[in-house]
């Protein structure tokens, strides 16, 4: 199946969950990643079950935060 991840088209042999996609695409620290599929946020608790479908557009980004202390 063909999907778009962070603007890049990729081909996968079979359907994957969001969690698996983060592994396949070498996301670092996936526990701090926020995901959208087709502009809809995916709940972190759904990462293990939510399937990415053919033609989906997936975006993910790292949490960005910090502090001055």
């Amino acid at each position, binding site marked *: 199946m063909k999907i778009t991840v962070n603007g890049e088209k990729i081909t996968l042999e079979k359907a994957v969950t969001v969690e698996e996609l983060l592994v396949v695409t070498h996301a*670092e620290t996936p526990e*701090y990643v*926020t995901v959208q599929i087709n502009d809809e946020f995916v709940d972190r608790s759904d990462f293990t079950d939510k399937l990415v479908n053919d033609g989906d557009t997936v975006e993910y*980004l790292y*949490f*960005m*935060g910090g*502090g*001055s*202390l």
Partner: protein
Amino acid sequence: MISPNANLKGDIMIILKKDQFQSIVEYARGNLPEEACGLLSGYIKNEKRIIEKIYFLTNLDHSPEHFSMDAKEQFAAVKNMRKHGYVLIGNFHSHPSSPSRPSEEDKRLAFDPLMSYLILSLAEKDPILRSFKIENKISSEESINIL
């Protein structure tokens, strides 16, 4: 006003226009006493990271000592960058009353070793902007050239 460039460990140079620098300073001052934050986009040419567009984001923490970027705004910014043909180069945040150096929290929450982390200190009369690469909680300074 310009970053001190002592003790640089990398070859990366951030190229920022003077008006872009001013816009970051104004945004940060406008958000006082809270920390301000945003994203920097542009293009990469060898070791140079040329900033073309700055995205000013909401600090969801609304705190003078912490910041968390609004993920919804982050996604919108990244998609907009792509539309312009730019890449995400880094982010910035302000330290209203502490020096321009990564705090322990900054280092702990820096998840992308490819990013440049710019910190603007407003602790002194003149703002100080410095850029850092942070990998495995270790920071090294990058140079900034404000044109």
